[in-house]
């Protein structure tokens, strides 16, 4: 069972690698939704192995936010804004992939520094979820499109959820509720901004958002 959990964590990271490679926004969104589903299944299996009230709550909240609301809102966006255009990373893809691999190695090395304090199973999932959050930053940095930056942030949020689930059995429920609520509001503000940027500039390309210089 634990090896299956590990499999799910590594799937999440592979999905982030795939996202780094995508050039179509629509694929990016599909991959994000798949990643959310993998995250939820991880939480479900964890809840089966270690039945605990906090984990159920965390599960219910994540399910509600990440499987119901976010995909629905993202699909609405896609349909409303007709997001079919391509986006190119500003760096060639093999280099990007290579940097991603280096980040994974870095987080593995970092985790082995704290080996005595973690159990063996958490060791791998800790390093992988840390690597996942670093990949999310790559996703944010190396695209010149507003919407892919948001997706990067959501991937980062996913990996933090994953990290808190692998390390502990979740925060006290009230804190978790607050965090989920904040992420939701943040996403709504992002959405509003996207509409404003679109109406002001007619596109999401970041070259419109690079006028403020020294």
């Amino acid at each position, binding site marked *: 069972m634990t090896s299956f959990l590990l499999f799910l964590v590594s799937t999440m990271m592979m999905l982030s690698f795939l996202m780094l490679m995508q050039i179509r926004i629509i694929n990016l969104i599909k991959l994000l939704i798949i990643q959310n589903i993998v995250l939820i299944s991880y939480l479900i299996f964890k809840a089966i192995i270690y039945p605990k009230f*906090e984990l159920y709550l965390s599960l219910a909240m994540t399910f509600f936010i990440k499987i119901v609301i976010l995909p629905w809102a993202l699909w609405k966006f896609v349909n409303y804004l007709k997001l079919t255009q391509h986006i190119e990373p500003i760096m060639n893809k093999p280099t990007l992939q290579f940097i991603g691999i280096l980040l994974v190695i870095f987080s593995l090395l970092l985790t082995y520094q704290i080996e005595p304090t973690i159990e063996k199973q958490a060791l791998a999932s800790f390093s992988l979820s840390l690597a996942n959050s670093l990949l999310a930053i790559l996703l944010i940095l190396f695209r010149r499109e507003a919407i892919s930056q948001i997706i990067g942030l959501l991937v980062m949020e996913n990996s933090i959820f994953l*990290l*808190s689930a692998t390390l502990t059995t979740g*925060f006290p429920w009230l804190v978790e509720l607050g965090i989920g609520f904040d992420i939701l509001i943040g996403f709504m*503000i992002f959405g509003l901004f996207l509409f404003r*940027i679109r109406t002001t500039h007619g596109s999401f390309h970041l070259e419109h958002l*690079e006028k*403020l210089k*020294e």
Partner: protein
Amino acid sequence: MNPILLFLLPSMLALVTLPTIANRSLASYWSASLSTFSFLLAIPLVIHTYAHAHPVFFLHQWLLCDKLSAFFIGLNSFIAMTTSFYAISYLNNESHTTLYRLIYRFYHSFFHLFLLGMLIVILSNNIGLMWIAMELATIASVVLVALYQNSEALEAAWKYLILCGVGIGFALLGTVILYFATYHYLTEEQGLLWTDLLTNASHFSVKLLAIAFVFLFVGYGTKVGFFPLHNWLPDAHAEGPSPISALLSGLLLNIALFAILRFKLVLSHTEIAAFSSHLLLIFGFLSLLFAAFSLLRQHKLKRLFAYSSIEHMGLISIALGIGTPLSYLAGFLHILTHSLSKTAVFFSIGSILQRFHTQAVNQLKGLTTAVPLNGWCLLLCSFALLGLPPSGLFFSELLLILATLKTHMWLVIPLILGLAIAFIAIFYKIQSISFSSYPTNFHPLPDSQQLDWPVILHLGLVILAGFWIPVWFIQPVIHLLTYGV
């Protein structure tokens, strides 16, 4: 009634009532009076905390008011009050087409949401709650920065949102790792309580604590505006409405530094105490020097003073990094006087912006002749900010140099270099716009009632702090920082 609950009541009342008030002037005055209530209620809370040895707790120990929080509560609620009075006239002078009714309501509701977020960060004993409140303050201030909705404001807000989104994500990562470090020693609720973290810190795994601190430092450091992560700061300060620039610069940056200080205190009870101090020192010096050189290249008033904020945050984190009682005195005096004078500067720039419709340094001339009160206020506030005596900043910078001399002698060189370059840059630019026989034309403002007295009040307090250093206000905080709770 618990004094913390009592203190938070006006802010909550503001959140409930302000979104429903459609009348412009009623909303402004109501907002200002609620901030005044909040300040009045802060006074007994601060006095109570300073007078008693034990901190005040509330809500299952999730909220706490110790001497450190009391200091920031006093400062925050005072500046929030003057800012909301200044905003009455500032908003009246704005065109009603850009600030139409809905936007106006947005402004007041999010203004108080922003303030409440910051107050909860200060008061929270639970590090999870602290993160939530910080995120709330960030989101609220993003909306406020984007208030004018032109393309520059959108760009600034977008940068702010993305960079601080990443930063705040890192902070959450750090919080999770810190919680995990406590996992085997404390029960669930306790693992997030700062007071329990502080007393049990010596048991935790040092390496986990170090990793957690790095993430927290990077995360909250993004909000402080430390050097490599400062990109959002000048844009957000320059493009938002002036009262918001004042709050961002005078309060929000302090609050983020306050959060880092809380975690530094946890580490100070372990063997890696020096590590946290070194991080603060390194980033402090980097920010100071970077900001000092960037100041030379600025030609917009608000951007100039935004970079000056990065410089001052650098100075404060150097003071906190040195960590002796003398440097704490310098640091907290600097926090106090910097906040007061920086908000005063942004208030003056706001009025200038409304009168001259430009903030470009090369287009403004002879401000002291054209608008004497406003011009002189800007000039004097900038001098106070530069640390010319008798301003309180003169003493805080002097004390900082002395504290540095005592512990790390050679660090005085970059410190004085940074201060000198910043001085030259700002002095040169401010004097060039202040005096000329041919002043720039300006539009008289319909409402200038509330524009000047907050500036004069802040300036007066900064100068008073130079003559009579408020040791009574800072001493208890230093005691808490050096000898523990």
